[in-house]
């Protein structure tokens, strides 16, 4: 990324709703240039998606989140990639990471009930050729999501004093 692209990304990762026109003003550039740069970042897959971060505890939709540690025998040629990509393709799966340490894949999944999560692990993940074992950890409470602390600090309790 160029320095200019980095600056754009810095703004967008704080708040993706800021319009190209505003970004242009913030960076002393013009709207067209910013739009072109964002297009490029999207095309190159550097910007993957724009999304909203929800606090599940407030949505009143009951969901269950779990982290599944998966131990895998790497396959010839493709190593961990083949199985990781297959696991990643399930819509229930939120993230998949290859890890160093005691297990190989960290799989974050979200579903509606405990039973559904359990079934997903036993019927889908465990049955994959090459999966040696799994350990499922249910998430009890989220304190920070995607770099944001869920319980908001009172950021604007400034009062009007003439300073």
């Amino acid at each position: 990324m160029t320095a200019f692209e980095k600056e754009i990304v810095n703004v967008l990762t704080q708040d993706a709703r800021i319009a190209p026109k505003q970004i242009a003003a913030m960076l002393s550039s013009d709207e067209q240039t910013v739009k072109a740069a964002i297009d490029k970042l999207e095309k190159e897959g550097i910007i993957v998606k724009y999304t909203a971060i929800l606090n599940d505890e407030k949505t009143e939709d009951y969901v269950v989140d779990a982290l599944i540690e998966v131990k895998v025998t790497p396959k010839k040629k493709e190593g961990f990639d083949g199985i990781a990509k297959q696991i990643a393709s399930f819509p229930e799966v939120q993230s998949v990471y290859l890890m160093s340490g005691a297990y190989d894949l960290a799989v974050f999944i979200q579903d509606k009930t405990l039973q559904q999560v359990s079934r997903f692990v036993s019927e889908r993940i465990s049955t994959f050729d090459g999966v040696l074992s799994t350990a499922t950890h249910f998430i009890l409470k989220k304190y920070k999501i995607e770099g944001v602390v869920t319980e908001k600090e009172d950021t604007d309790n400034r009062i009007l004093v003439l300073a």
Partner: protein
Amino acid sequence: MRDFVNEKTKLIKPSGIRKFFDIVRETEGAISLGVGEPDFVTSWKVRQAAIRSLQRGYTQYTGNRGIPTLLELIARYLQERFDLSFDPKHILVTVGGSEAIDLALRACVERGEEVLIPDPAYVSYAPLVTMADGVPVAVECREEDNFVLQSSLLEKAITPKTKAIILTYPNNPTGAIMTKDELEKIAKVIEKHDLLVITDEIYAELTYGKKHTSIVNLPGMKDRTIFISGFSKAFAMTGWRMGYVCAPPSIDDAMFKIHQYAIMCAPITSQHAAIEALQDGFSDGFATVEEMRESYDMRRKFVLHSLHEMGLHCFQPQGAFYAFPSVKNTGLSGERFAEQLLKTQKVAVVPGNAFGLFGENNVRLSYATGMNALAQAMERMSAFLSKTE
């Protein structure tokens, strides 16, 4: 019963802006660009250091001057960041920069002596001069001079009674800074008339493009200058009330006496927080300060661009976090503009006349406000302007 309040205090006008702020508070959905403090919360490391100090039982007085470690860190900070050399022995930690201004004036001004204040300026200087039995004298800083104090206007304001001049750059409310060349011209006049300088450099970390120069570093100035700064703006620590003042030994002694008897010492918890702010800063090249500065700078550019687009003339601020556009071409005074903008579009800005005699045609808006609110405020202002035309 007698009227117990003395005449001097009665002379001080209550801030006319109070009524205006009351209306802002009662206006639902109002976006305020009126607040004069960072929109960042103090960094968690600093807050945690304060909590730890409480847990370890640091709840007592400190030495009058402040915790020795803090005095040494301030000296090192001023040296490394601004090339200023002060002996920790002559640094005094105060309850905000405000106490330091008060100390400086009370320690140095005799009854009836005049103190020059570049105008427009922060609201406290003139009343504090009055309380110190001095006479505040406004020196106009004109927009066509980039709100920079001109030696010719300074010279004109000087009388045999003039004792001191308060310098306040980067400036609140204009956002003006003074370069070395500009300061040199002023310094000559100051030396010629043997004036004391009280320089309030609380916004020194927040300049955009040019690095801050202190008048202290000009030849002949250090011995006649009281240097004031603090943690409020640079480290987003307004509520901790952490300021400091560095002065030549004889003045320092005098200020120390007043501080010792009136205040005793700055709060210990805040001092521990300040120690962490500096130690953390040294460990990562003051990354937190730089991040905040960059964030202000982006918003500064956005606001200037927006003001320009809506047809308001605005001096390009180069420091602090304020823009001070002129509303002259709307045919409204700053005060009327602010009132009507609040009433019709629910955006609060501060009328320029709150900052002295020479800000009548301007309003101050603080861009230390979240980007979304700021963008919305700019849209509303633009709508307001298209209706007044």
